């Protein structure tokens, strides 16, 4: 059907000045907005004040402040911890790639329908069940001390084995998230893709996975941030990362401030990513969904 030319509404024309009623409504909304801002500022200040004075007035505050919040110790140990953090960032980089690849493979294998792949499917299912249940710290011990102990691998640094352990564990989480996402893509999308002559693999790669990943981006980000923190666990294998550096500094200074420094650094590196994902999610929502006030 052809549409009458120019049938679309709203060729941009300067709108007339708003009516008295609309002006009054806008004024009310502005006042309402200002009131909300004032209220939120006041309530924030009250909560912060209560929290601050509540902590500061505890009997042991002076001692805690000395051992956890010593600015001198923080400044002197900061460079070493930052250097350690660089190792965490590198591990995170390689682990993310490993998890993305391995997790996707697991998810796809679990979704295979053909009876030929039955053994693979069972294996993938058993794998995800096992590694989602195993505490990461135990996987780290098994991989970090067990595998090198077999004597078949060349000497490799502990951070290598740590990365492997993290990839093994997190792939199972990510595979489950991706699988949920793939199942949430409406079957009609597969039908449409197959009807165009796309193969099963093409359908998966070009139609299902892109939509699945969008649906589960928040969940994936959650796993990513969680992984970012767990990267600190490689310290138990002896790798000198931020946590290990903090531990060494703590042993030297008899002060816990280095741990706090390391903790804050972990928060700082996770923040930009969280904000970026939020922004991406919002943009996607705007692009793919019609607006509405409800």
């Amino acid at each position, binding site marked *: *059907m052809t*549409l*009458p030319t*120019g*049938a*679309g*509404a*709203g*060729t*941009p*024309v300067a*709108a*007339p000045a*708003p*009516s008295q*009623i*609309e002006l009054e*409504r806008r004024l*009310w*909304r502005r006042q*309402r907005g200002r009131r909300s801002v004032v209220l939120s500022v006041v309530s924030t200040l009250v909560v912060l004040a209560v929290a601050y004075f509540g902590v500061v007035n505890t009997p042991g505050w002076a001692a805690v402040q000395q051992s956890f919040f010593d600015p001198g110790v923080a400044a002197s140990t900061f460079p070493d911890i930052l250097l350690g953090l660089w190792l965490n960032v590198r591990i995170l980089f390689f682990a993310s790639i490993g998890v993305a690849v391995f997790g996707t493979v697991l998810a796809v294998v679990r979704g295979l329908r053909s009876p030929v792949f039955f053994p693979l499917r069972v294996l993938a299912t058993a794998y995800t069940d096992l590694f989602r249940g195993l505490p990461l710290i135990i996987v780290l011990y098994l991989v970090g001390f067990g595998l090198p102990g077999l004597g078949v691998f060349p000497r490799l640094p502990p951070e290598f084995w740590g990365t492997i352990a993290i990839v093994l564990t997190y792939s199972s989480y990510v595979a489950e998230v991706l699988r949920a996402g793939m199942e949430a893509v409406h079957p009609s999308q597969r039908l449409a893709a197959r009807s165009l002559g796309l193969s099963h693999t093409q359908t998966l790669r070009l139609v299902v996975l892109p939509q699945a990943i969008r649906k589960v981006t928040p969940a994936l980000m959650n796993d990513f941030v969680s992984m970012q923190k767990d990267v600190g666990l490689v310290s138990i294998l002896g790798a000198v990362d931020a946590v290990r550096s903090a531990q060494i500094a703590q042993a030297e200074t008899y002060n816990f401030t280095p741990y706090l420094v390391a903790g804050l650094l972990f928060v700082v590196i996770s923040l930009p990513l969280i904000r970026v994902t939020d922004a991406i999610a919002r943009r996607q929502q705007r692009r793919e969904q019609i*607006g*509405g*006030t*409800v």
Partner: protein
Amino acid sequence: MTDAPVLELRGLRKSFGEHEVLRGIDLTVDQHQVICVIGASGSGKSTLLKTVNLLEGIDDGQVLLQGTDISDPRVDVDATRARIGVVFQQFNLFPHITVLDNVTLASRKVHGVDRGTAEQTARRLLDRIGLADFAGSYPDRLSGGQQQRVAIVRAIASDPELLLLDEVTSALDPMLVGEVLDLVTELKQQGSTILMTTHEMHFARNVADRIVFLHRGEVVEQGAPGAVLDAPQHPALVEFLARVGA
């Protein structure tokens, strides 16, 4: 009941960015009337219905329901929406609950009717549209026409003062359009007040009390079906009617 019209729109304006979709709409719907809004795609029909139900905010003008300005930001939006029934083009039944629960949801959760009474009403309504046997089924089991009739019953289950129907037959197989339009006709006979958008000119001619032609966000012509459809004045309406073959 006041003598104010059920619905009155005064100088309604709505823009999406630079794009002005509604450019000063004035419209009244009196009690027991069926008003059909017609117009080309993009003429602002759907936006108009959404603004009436406050699903879309307005930039200027007023929406009065029984004489009360419901576009005032101080008005309780949820309470207002509870007084207006809406049926969408795509049915929008909730797929995770049964047909009966779809119909009784608002009565039970919004209007505080107890389950027994709500279900009794729902079963009576479902029986009237011949779908009593499907009360315990999930919506996906039903055909499009059946789903849309359930959606209409869901909208009228709590006795709304006004019913908004947004192209309720546009997503249906031609074979199924009739059963839905018959139900709308029946609602009119029972005295419902209806504001609807439609492309079914034949239906509009037979059922509407007044036809409103929307063009580029403005009401350019309105009146009795005979006058609007048989003796169109505005060139845009003449062209539109020629294209839809009415």
